[in-house]
Every structure is written in structure tokens, then in C-alpha cells.
């Protein structure tokens, strides 16, 4: 794709991601040229913006030819059918968790779509994300196996995920995917959070007549910030929209929770990214959380850089996690798991066996060092 077209597609996608947000009303309908369409459609599908794009067409903020509109509608229908299948599975799981006496909190997709967005069709999602208590980790794994889930990804060493990890990916026999979370993010910020305290910050939403647990107004906003700021580099558009959609009713309370979870720098980075990328006006109270980077504690700043700078590709998260882990024994266990993982993990991650896989594993930190 020519650079000019690519730039135009990126601008169009940003505009669509910001559809109907304060201060983003276009002066006249945006027209999409034929040469822009294929690239734009691919980007809309990849960034899960098909619902917002259709909404923009409905109110004539964007004009598409009948052919382009039909292809957009087809892709959006597929995204919505996928979301409905996931929600059906979520309801089945909710019953299974209740029957087993296990707690679960719905994160991201369904909670965000039904509880924060004006229309759930604006917020497609590709998998389910469920938060469970760390102490229930093993029991939940057993329950998921009974419900038709399996997990292909081994852990570096037994108990690693439960102690240092963030998610455990499961695949249902139907092909649908579930991310089991014990905290909100991988790396230092996830390790600093008190995972059990997350369960004190929950509320509920209703899905097909059933009440499900979600994070409360402050915590869902902080999680949106975490996902937007730390999930990808640079941040993706829909997670940035999530930040705006989940604006808390009380910004000072959200700020206090951000302080406790050492997320001030993350929240500031997410809000500034959302505001500048989506060119939208945030509520005046949000400005208290949009501080300049230099004002944050050094440890938080360094941890944020491990996700948002080129350090991310050079083992930044693993190193930052090492700082965040408390106690020498725990640090040693973390290092041992990363440097001398089990054979099964090596074969899965490095694609080789024995010494070859181990050499490939060790080559990575050496490359990180070489680039410094």
C-alpha cells in the first residue's frame, strides 16, 4: 500500500474509533475512495472497529458505496456472531462456577460492551477474559477441563503462573478462547497489585437476564488504562476508546486507587494517548490524572518504560518483573524458571528439544545485552 494511502487509512481508522466522542463531530461526511477501501476494511476488522464504522455510516458521518457497505456489514455480522457465541459460553461458565462455589469476575469484552458502551455492537471482542482468585487457580483449571477446555501452553516450571504469571490461555472444544486471569496485567504492575483486593472492587452487570460480576467503576477504568497503555506498543485504537468509555464517575477515587496500585504513570500515559490519538475532549477532572512523566516515582516510570519503549522487545518486562518480585527466594525462583525452564516449555516455545532449545532460549538475553 502506498505510504499516502496507509497514512490516510490510519487517519480514517482513528476518526472511526473516535466516532461520537466529545469534540469529534466531523464538519461534513467522510467519503471513502475506492483505493482506500480494502486497506481500511482490513484495519477496521483487525482493530475491531466495524461496529463503530457502521454506526458512523448510519448517521451519515461516513459515506460508503453500496458494495463497500455490504462488505463492512458482512464482516461486522461475523464479529457479532463470534461475540454472541462467546457470551453464550460465558453464561454456561457462570453457571458452572456458581455450582462449584467459585468466584469469577468478567473482564474486558462483555463487561465493557454491555456496561460501558452505548451499544454493545460497537465493542466486538475475540475471546473471554475472566478473573479468578489465585487460591482457586488449580480448582478453576479442573473445572474448565470438565467444561470442555484445554490448555496447550505449558508453564516454565510448575506453579509459575500461579506465583508470577498473569493469564492462562484455554481453548474450548468449540474453538473459542478463554484467558484466565489472576491479576490485571503481566509484569511489574500486575505483581504490585494485591490480586485479592481486586475482588473488593467489583460490581455487577446483567447479561441475558443473569447477573454477572465485573470490576467496579474505578477498577474497570484502571484496567482499561492498563490494557491500553501496556497491552500494545503503540496503543491500539479500541483499548483507547475503552479508556474514554470507562471514565469513572469520581476521578479522585480512581486516582486514590491508582496510587495504591502504583498505576499513576500508567493512567496518565493511557489518558494522554487516548486524548491525543482520538483527538477527543476528556472531562476537566481527568486533568488531575494527566501529569507529566517526570512527576512519577522512578520505579513506576521505569516499569512503564519497560512496556512503552524499545526496552519492551529487549526483555524489559522480565527485568522489571524481577525488581517487582519481593524477597530473594522468590526472585531466585523467577530467574530459575526463566533461565532453566522445563523441557516441555522449551519445546513449546523454542520449537526444538534439549540443548538446542536451551541455547535458543539463552540466546535471547544475550541479544538483549548486545543491543544495549
Amino acid at each position, binding site marked *: 500500500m502506498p505510504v499516502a494511502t496507509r497514512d490516510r487509512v490510519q487517519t480514517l481508522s482513528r476518526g472511526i474509533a473516535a466516532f461520537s466522542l466529545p469534540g469529534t463531530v466531523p464538519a461534513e461526511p467522510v467519503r471513502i475512495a475506492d483505493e482506500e477501501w480494502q486497506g481500511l476494511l482490513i484495519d477496521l476488522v483487525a482493530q475491531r472497529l466495524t461496529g463503530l464504522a*457502521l454506526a458512523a455510516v448510519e448517521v451519515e458521518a461516513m459515506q460508503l458505496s453500496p458494495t463497500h457497505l455490504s462488505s463492512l*456489514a458482512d464482516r461486522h455480522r461475523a464479529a*457479532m456472531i463470534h461475540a454472541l457465541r462467546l*457470551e453464550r459460553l460465558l*453464561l454456561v461458565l457462570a453457571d458452572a462456577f456458581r455450582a462449584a462455589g467459585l468466584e469469577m469476575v468478567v473482564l474486558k469484552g462483555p463487561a465493557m460492551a454491555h456496561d460501558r458502551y452505548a451499544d454493545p455492537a460497537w465493542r466486538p471482542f475475540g475471546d473471554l477474559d475472566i478473573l479468578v482468585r489465585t487460591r482457586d487457580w488449580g480448582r478453576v483449571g479442573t473445572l474448565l477441563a470438565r467444561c470442555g477446555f484445554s490448555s496447550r501452553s505449558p508453564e516454565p516450571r510448575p506453579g509459575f503462573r500461579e506465583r508470577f504469571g498473569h493469564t492462562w490461555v484455554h481453548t474450548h472444544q468449540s474453538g473459542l478462547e478463554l484467558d484466565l486471569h489472576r491479576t490485571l496485567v503481566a509484569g511489574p504492575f500486575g505483581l504490585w497489585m494485591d490480586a485479592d483486593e481486586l475482588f473488593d472492587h467489583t460490581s455487577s452487570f446483567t*447479561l*441475558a437476564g443473569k447477573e454477572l460480576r465485573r470490576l467496579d467503576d474505578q477498577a474497570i477504568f484502571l484496567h482499561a488504562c492498563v490494557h491500553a497503555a501496556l497491552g500494545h506498543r503503540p496503543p491500539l485504537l479500541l483499548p483507547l476508546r475503552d479508556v474514554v468509555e470507562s471514565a469513572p464517575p469520581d476521578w479522585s477515587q480512581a486516582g486514590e486507587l491508582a496510587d495504591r496500585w502504583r498505576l499513576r504513570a500508567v493512567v496518565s500515559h493511557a489518558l494522554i494517548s487516548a486524548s491525543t490519538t482520538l483527538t477527543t475532549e476528556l472531562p476537566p477532572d481527568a486533568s488531575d490524572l494527566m501529569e507529566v512523566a517526570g512527576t512519577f516515582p522512578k520505579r513506576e516510570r521505569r516499569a512503564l518504560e519497560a512496556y512503552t519503549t524499545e526496552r519492551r522487545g529487549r526483555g524489559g518486562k522480565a527485568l522489571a518483573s524481577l525488581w517487582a518480585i519481593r524477597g530473594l527466594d522468590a526472585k531466585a525462583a523467577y530467574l530459575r524458571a526463566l533461565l532453566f525452564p522445563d523441557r516441555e516449555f522449551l519445546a513449546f516455545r523454542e520449537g526444538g528439544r534439549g540443548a538446542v532449545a536451551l541455547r535458543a532460549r539463552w540466546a535471547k538475553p544475550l541479544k538483549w545485552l548486545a543491543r544495549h
Partner: protein
Amino acid sequence: MIDEKGFQRSNTALVRSTGFEVLLASVDREEVDVLSGSAALAWELLAEPTTSSALAAGLAEYYSIPVSAIDADVRRLLEDLQSRGWIQEDAGRD
């Protein structure tokens, strides 16, 4: 007579309205049903509890056609939606 009853959307349905279509799913059924055209419009009108005759009148007005031309089709649609569990009789209606 089915058209004397009031109907409303079932609160156990999983729903997405996409502007042109309505997609419906539930834990009890494998398939996802797609309502389009006048059926999608009928679904929108069923946001409030309504009777078959009121629904037919609303659709007739939208399409500028006599009620008699669609009355039977509307009754069949409601029966179909009810049999699939997407709508239920309005519990609040006497």
C-alpha cells in the same frame, strides 16, 4: 386469539442490533438467528410490550401499506419468534 396478547422481548436472549439486522442467540440453542428487513424493524418495535395488531399497524405505517396486507405475516412472525424463545407474552398485561 394471539393478536389479543401483548408481547415483549425475552430477557434471556443475547442480542446484537447492527443497524440492518438483529442477531439473536441463547444458551439453549446452537444457532444464531438473524432478523433482517421488516423482521428487524418488528424487533425494534418490540422494545416496548406490544400486541400483534399494534405491531402490524406500526409496520404498515412505516412501509405505507394497508394493515390488512401484513396482518397475517406479523402474526406468523410473532408465533415464530415466540416458539424460538426470542419473545414472550407480556406478563404485565391483563
